[in-house]
C-alpha cells in the first residue's frame, strides 16, 4: 500500500460555496412569499423560467469553455443569479423578457468575463439594467397589491398572462393593473410607490399630496413594505449564519438613511423620508442579497464599508434626482466599477509593515 500525499492544511472548515448559496436561497424565501402573496403567481413563473434558463445557459457556456458542466452547476451560483433577477422584474412581464435577461446575465456578464469569480459586475443587476433600458414598458408594469386590485388574476390567468400578455378572457396586463377605486370609469393604472411619487412630484405636487394615494398605508406602501420586511428577515438570517458580514448592509442602509434624513429635513415636501427609502422598492433585497454578492463587491472590511456607502448614496441620488424611480441596479453597477480602486486603497497593512507609533 502507499500513502496519500496532500498539502496542508489537512482539515477544513466544511462549508462549501454550494452550501453558502443554498443558505442564500433559503433566506430569500420570506421575501419571496410576501411577493407571491401581494403580487400574484407571476413571480413563481418568472422564477421557474429564470432558473431553467440560467442552468441551461450555464451548462452550455461551461461546455463551450471546455469545463465540466456538472462541476460548474454544482456551486448553485447560477440559481442565485436567476432568483435575484426573477424577483426584481414585474411578475407579469412577458416570458421572453426574463429569458433575455437571464441569458445576458449568465452568458455575457458572467461567462464572457471568465465565469464564477471573474465577473466585475453583478450579473443579476446587469441583466436587470439591460431589460430596464431596452423594455421600459414591460419593466415598469407592476401589478397593484392584491388587496387593491380590481382584478386579481388566478393561477391559470397568471400563466396565460405570462405567456401571451392577456388572460383567457382577453384582459390585457394593462387592464389587470387597474386598481379598484369604486367606479370603473375612474380607474387608474397602478405604479409602484416610488414611481408614483416621482410622477406626482414631477407634476408639481408636494410629497404630502403624492402620498395621499390609497396604496400608501402603513410605513411605505401596501405590499412593498411587507416584501422588504421579508427580505430584511432573510438578511438577518444570513447575518446570523455568518454568510455575510454586517459591513455591507450596515453601510448601505446607514448611508441611505443618513441621506434620507438630511433630505427630508431640508426639503420635507419634495424628498421622501426614511420610511419610504428603506421600505420601498428593492432596498432590503439590495442590502442583504444584491450588494453582498462577494464576487463583485470590495474585499476588505474597510473596502466593503466604502463600497456599500457608495451604493447607498447613489441610490438616494438617483431616486431623488435621477430619471428612474428606483436605482438599486444602477447604483450597484456603478459601485462595482469602483471596486478595483477601492480595493487598491483599502489594502490592509501587512504584518511587520506598520509604522512604529511613538
Amino acid at each position, binding site marked *: *500500500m*502507499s*500513502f*496519500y*500525499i*496532500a*498539502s*496542508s*492544511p*489537512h*482539515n*477544513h*472548515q*466544511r*462549508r*462549501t*460555496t454550494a*452550501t*453558502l448559496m443554498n443558505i442564500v436561497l433559503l433566506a430569500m424565501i420570506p421575501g419571496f412569499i410576501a411577493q407571491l402573496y401581494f403580487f400574484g403567481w407571476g413571480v413563481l413563473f418568472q422564477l421557474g423560467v429564470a432558473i431553467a434558463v440560467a442552468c441551461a445557459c450555464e451548462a452550455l457556456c461551461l461546455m463551450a469553455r471546455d469545463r465540466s458542466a456538472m*462541476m460548474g452547476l454544482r*456551486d448553485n*451560483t447560477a440559481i442565485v443569479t436567476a432568483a435575484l433577477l426573477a424577483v426584481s422584474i414585474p411578475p407579469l412581464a412577458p416570458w421572453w423578457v426574463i429569458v433575455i435577461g437571464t441569458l445576458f446575465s449568465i452568458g455575457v456578464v458572467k461567462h464572457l468575463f471568465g*465565469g*464564477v*469569480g*471573474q465577473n466585475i459586475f453583478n450579473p443579476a443587476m446587469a441583466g436587470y439594467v439591460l431589460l430596464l433600458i431596452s423594455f421600459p414598458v414591460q419593466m415598469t408594469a407592476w401589478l397593484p397589491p392584491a388587496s387593491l386590485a380590481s382584478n386579481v388574476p388566478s393561477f391559470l390567468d397568471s400563466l396565460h398572462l405570462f405567456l401571451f400578455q392577456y388572460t383567457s378572457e382577453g384582459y390585457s396586463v394593462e387592464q389587470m393593473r387597474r386598481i379598484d377605486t369604486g367606479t370603473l370609469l375612474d380607474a387608474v393604472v397602478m405604479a409602484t410607490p416610488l414611481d408614483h411619487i416621482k410622477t406626482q412630484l414631477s407634476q408639481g405636487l408636494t410629497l404630502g399630496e403624492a402620498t395621499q394615494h390609497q396604496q400608501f398605508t402603513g410605513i411605505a406602501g401596501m405590499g412593498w413594505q411587507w416584501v422588504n420586511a421579508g427580505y430584511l428577515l432573510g438578511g438577518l438570517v444570513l447575518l446570523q449564519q455568518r454568510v455575510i*458580514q454586517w459591513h455591507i448592509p450596515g453601510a448601505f442602509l446607514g448611508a441611505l438613511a443618513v441621506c434620507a434624513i438630511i433630505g427630508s429635513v431640508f426639503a420635507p415636501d419634495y424628498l421622501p423620508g426614511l420610511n419610504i427609502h428603506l421600505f420601498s422598492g428593492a432596498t432590503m433585497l439590495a442590502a442583504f442579497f444584491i450588494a453582498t454578492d*462577494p*464576487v463583485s*463587491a470590495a*474585499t*476588505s*472590511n474597510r473596502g466593503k464599508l466604502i463600497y456599500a456607502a457608495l451604493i447607498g448614496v447613489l441610490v438616494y441620488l438617483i431616486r431623488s434626482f435621477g430619471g428612474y424611480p428606483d436605482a438599486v441596479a444602477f447604483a450597484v453597477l456603478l459601485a462595482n466599477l469602483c471596486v478595483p480602486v477601492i480595493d487598491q486603497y483599502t*489594502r*490592509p*497593512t*501587512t*504584518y*511587520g*509593515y*506598520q509604522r512604529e507609533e511613538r
Partner: protein
Amino acid sequence: MAIEITATSRLWNFPGGVQPDERKSPANLQPIQRFPLAPMLYIPLRQHAGAAGELCVAVGDYVLKGQPLTIPGVDNGLPVHASTSGTIKAITEHPLNHPSGLSGLTVHLQPDDQDAPYPHQPIADIHAISQREVLQHLQQMGIAGLGGAGFPTARKVAGARNIDALIINGIECEPYIVADDRLMREHAAKILRGCELLQQLTSAKSVIFAIEDNKPEAINAVATAIAETSSTTIANIILRVIPTKYPSGGEKQLIQILTGKQVPANGLPADIGILMQNVATAYAVAHAIDVGEPLLERVVTLTGEALHHPGTAWAPLGTPVEYLLQQSGFQPSKHQRVIIGGPMMGYTIANLQVPVTKTTNCILAPTASELTPADAEMACIRCGACEQACPASLLPQQLYWHAKAQDYDALKQHHIVDCIECGICAYVCPSQIPLVQYYRQAKAEIREQAIEHQKAEIARQRFEARQLRLEREKEERLEKHRRAAEARKAAQAARAAEAPTSPSAADTKPSAGKGTNAAVQAALARAKAKKAAQEQPDSSASIGPSAAVQAAIERAKAKKAAQAAAPEQAEPVADKGPSAAVQAAIERAKAKKAAQANAESSQSAEPAPENNTQSDKQDAIAAAVARAKARKAEREQAKGNTESQNNAAENERKGKQN
C-alpha cells in the same frame, strides 16, 4: 521602546485567526512513554536549518550514546550525535523527514541496547566561563529550536543583543499536538532551569512564559514551579495565559499578543528587543548544560484515530516513524495519511522509514472521517473569508490570482514573503482552494529565481573576465611578436652597422650569416635540446598510457566520423554517400582493431609491473580522495553562501508553531 510587561498588563490581539477543533485529548491524557529502542536508527546528517557538518565516523565503527557523528562545517552548523550506543551499519542516502520525500546522507545506527554513554560534559557554573564558550557548548550539544524551524539555538542567542524580554513559547496552538503540554506538566522545573540559563545568557531583563488557556494542568504545573523557584534566580518572570486561537503560537503573532508590537518586515524579534524560545528548547538547554548530554531525544506526539494507543513518547532522534506508529497500534486504512506536524501546517510523508528529527513534534495518523481530505478545487468567488482570517493581514485572494498567473513581481509587491504558511486561508476557503500550496510554490519559485539571478550574475562576470583575459593575452602575444620583430630589426640594423660595406638589404642575410653564424647555431642547438628534453619525459614516461590515449582519440574520431556520415547518407544528392559510409565503416573497423590491439597489448603488459600499478592505484586513490575532499569543501562553501541567503527565509519559517 523598552518592553515592560507585568502579569496584569493587557493582552493585544492579532487580526484574523481561527479556532479549529483542538482534539488534544486523548493524546494528552497519558504520561510521556518510553518505547524500547528501534532495531535501526536513521540519523540524517542535516537536521537543522543550515549546512550539514562533516562526518567523523565510518561504517563499522562502534559509537557510544551521545558521541558526535559529525563536526560542524565551515558555516557553524550543528553536529549530530549517536542517539544510543551501537554499530554504524551504513552511511548512505535515506529518505529524509521532509515534505519533498527526497533522500539525504544518513547514518544507519544499529543499537546494541546497552546505552553505553559517551562522557557527559556538564558546565557547573556558566558564569565561570565566557558567554561565547557557553554558546559553543550549546552548539556542540546540537541544540536547535525544537518548535518547528530547527534554527541553531546558539546562533539565535548570539545574534540577540539588548534583549528586554525573553519569551518562552508554551502555546502549542495547533490541534492535536500535545508534546509541549506533556513536557510542561511533567518537567516544569527543568524548563524553568532552562529559562534561567537562557536569561543569564541573553541578559534579558524579564522572562515571559506564555501558555494557551486550554492547558490548565500545564499552567498549574508551571505556576507551581515558578512559585517554588526563588525569585533571585530568575528575575521578573511572568506567566501569561493566552486565549486559545490559532495561530497564536506563531512567533510573530505571540509577540503581537504579548506586547502589541510587530516584528518589522525582514527583521528579527531581536530588533524590538525580544528573543523567543520554545519550552522544549529551554528543557534541552538545561539538559545540555546541567547534565552535559547532547540533544538525543525529543517528545513526539503520536495521535490520530488510526492509532490504538495515542499518546506522547520520548523518541530517540533517528527512530523510524513506522516503528513509533507500530508501537502505538497503527491501523492503516485505504487512503491513509501520515502527517508530520499538526493538521494545519504539517506535511504528509510517502515513506514511513523516515526518521524522527529534532523538529518532529507530532506524528498524526488520522482516519478519513476524522480529517476529510479536501474536495476538488473550485473557482474562487472572492468571498474574502481568507482575508478576514489571515493573521499576517495579507490579501490571500490577490496572492492566489497572482500566483496562478505566475506574476512574481506582483507577488513580491503583495508581500508574499511575509506569509507564515499557517494554512488558515485554505482552511476557511469555501471553494477548497489549496491556497498555501500555491504560495509555497510561488515562494520557492521566487527564491529559485533569486538564486538563478545571482548565478547568472556570477556567470556574466566570469564570462566578461574571461573575455578580458583573452583580449589581454592576445594583446600580449601581439606585443611579444612586435617586440620580437623590433628586436630582429634592431639586430639587423646592428648587423648592418657592423657590416657597413654591404650594399643592400637583400645581401644582409648571406653576409650576416657569416658574422653571426656561431650565435645562430648555438641558439638552434639550444632550442633542439630543449625540445628533446621536453619530449623525453613524455615518451619515456608512459608509452602505455599514450597508446591508450591514442586509442581513445581514435575511437572518438571514428564515432565522430560515423556521426558525420549519417547525415551525408540522408542527403539524396550525394552519390558519394554510400562510398563515404563505407569509408567511415572501414575506418571505424580499423579504429576498433587498433583499439583491440592496444587493449591486448596493454593487457599483456599489465601483469608484469603489478607492484607498480598497485602503487599507482593507491596514488590515484589518494589523489581522487584529495580531489573529492577539495570539491566537497568548495561545494559546501558555496552551499553555505546560498544558505546564508536562505537564512531570511528560514527565519521567517521560524514562525512555525509547536
